[in-house]
């Protein structure tokens, strides 16, 4: 296997190690902890007051526009990274190209700003 793939295999081992460690500790805990459930204990905790309605009730999600903006800017970052590593070679040409790119994106941010969506309403 190439070194490249082996590095990713190491990542898999790390994920497995995390799960194994947590599983082991949870197993130890399961062996020694008491387990005496009753109705009151299993109620949803709302500061001691009886819960009204269900936790999965409707609620207003206030920042879906932020989520959309996030996608735009995150994809932008994906484009900037490869450019950043090779900037030395691209020189002034690459610089002005990226200047235009970032400027267009900033326009987008300014537009969202002016539209008032960057406010928590």
């Amino acid at each position, binding site marked *: 296997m190439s070194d490249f793939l082996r590095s990713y295999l190491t990542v898999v081992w*790390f994920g497995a*190690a*995390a799960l194994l460690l947590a599983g082991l500790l949870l197993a130890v805990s399961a062996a020694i902890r008491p387990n005496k459930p009753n109705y009151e204990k299993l109620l*949803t905790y709302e500061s001691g007051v009886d819960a009204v309605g269900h936790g999965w009730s409707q609620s207003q999600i206030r920042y879906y526009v932020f989520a959309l903006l996030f996608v735009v800017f995150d994809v932008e970052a994906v484009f900037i990274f490869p450019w950043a*590593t090779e900037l030395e070679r691209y020189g002034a040409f690459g610089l002005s190209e990226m200047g235009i790119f970032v400027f267009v994106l900033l326009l987008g*941010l300014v537009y969202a700003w002016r539209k008032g969506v960057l406010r928590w309403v």
Partner: protein
Amino acid sequence: MLAITIPYWGQSLLRVLGGIVAVLLPAGTIVYLFLFKMMSFMQSRLGPMEAGPYGSLQLVAEVGKWLQKEDIMPERADHRIFKMAPLIVLTSTFLLIAVVPFGPDAWFTNFDVGVFYMLAVSSVSVLGILIAGWASANKYSLLGGLRAAGQLIAYELPMVLAVIGVVIQAGTMNLQQIVFAQNAGEMFGWNGLGNPYILTQFVGFCVFMVAVQAELTQAPFDMPIAESELVSGYMTEYSGFRFLIFFIAEFATAGVFALVASVLFLGGWGVPFSWFGWKSIDGVANWMNVVGPIIMFSKMMLLVFLIMWVRFTYPRFREDQLQRFAWKVLIPVSLANIMVTAILKVVF
């Protein structure tokens, strides 16, 4: 380079063990030294004093206590997903440490796209937090989970954009190469100190640390677990050892982010290469594999001290201030930082 060769399974085993130490040791140190002791001293009290000299065995006592706690799962919760959430958060911490280099040969993975990997994996924990909030079927948890998602999304961007400045300067996304570039670099033709990027990328460093503070949901960015309004946010319904996993992951992640920040901005495991006349990463002496981790640990403690200092000092942001700060201050500043860095890089 190392003279001995270790078979692949041995290397993997060593790496995984090293990774576990690199996650748990900082987490324990941070909790005892900063959360227990420093916070207490800042608030004019002594903190834990009973277990061991100066309470140094308090952590052992705590883990023993949490192991014996009853594991209460609310009846209405989505049990399978409820159990999954802390594991996801902890796994994301372990995946994140996998990319941090500790010495010339003491690395877990040596990706050419290390920075990319680091940024990608660091956002996995959002999933764990979001499903923890949802699966609890509790209004506090749901609100906390949603706030956490909104906050982590908003502060992910300044973090990503702040790192681009470093990548432009180093010309690579490989973290080992970034360490090399800083320690072998020179300032105005003088290479006595190398060129740690905290000097040239100070704006980037500040933006990065603020974003890290928010990603870790430490005060003043602790809206998701605001204990005076949401009990404990997405962790409200968790009890017993599952809660402790969240807790460990939180402080382990603080340590790992500090390690990443020290690699990106403080020169990582290296000492200025000119001190010993090293020319390349392969020429670095073998003893750096032992000294490197110690240097990394010291830098981590320094940065975590900063994070905790801010945490214990400032009051909480309001949710709208928090979002406004990310979108209207940090993102424009970091975009400007990218362009200025790029222009300077091309001009000089």
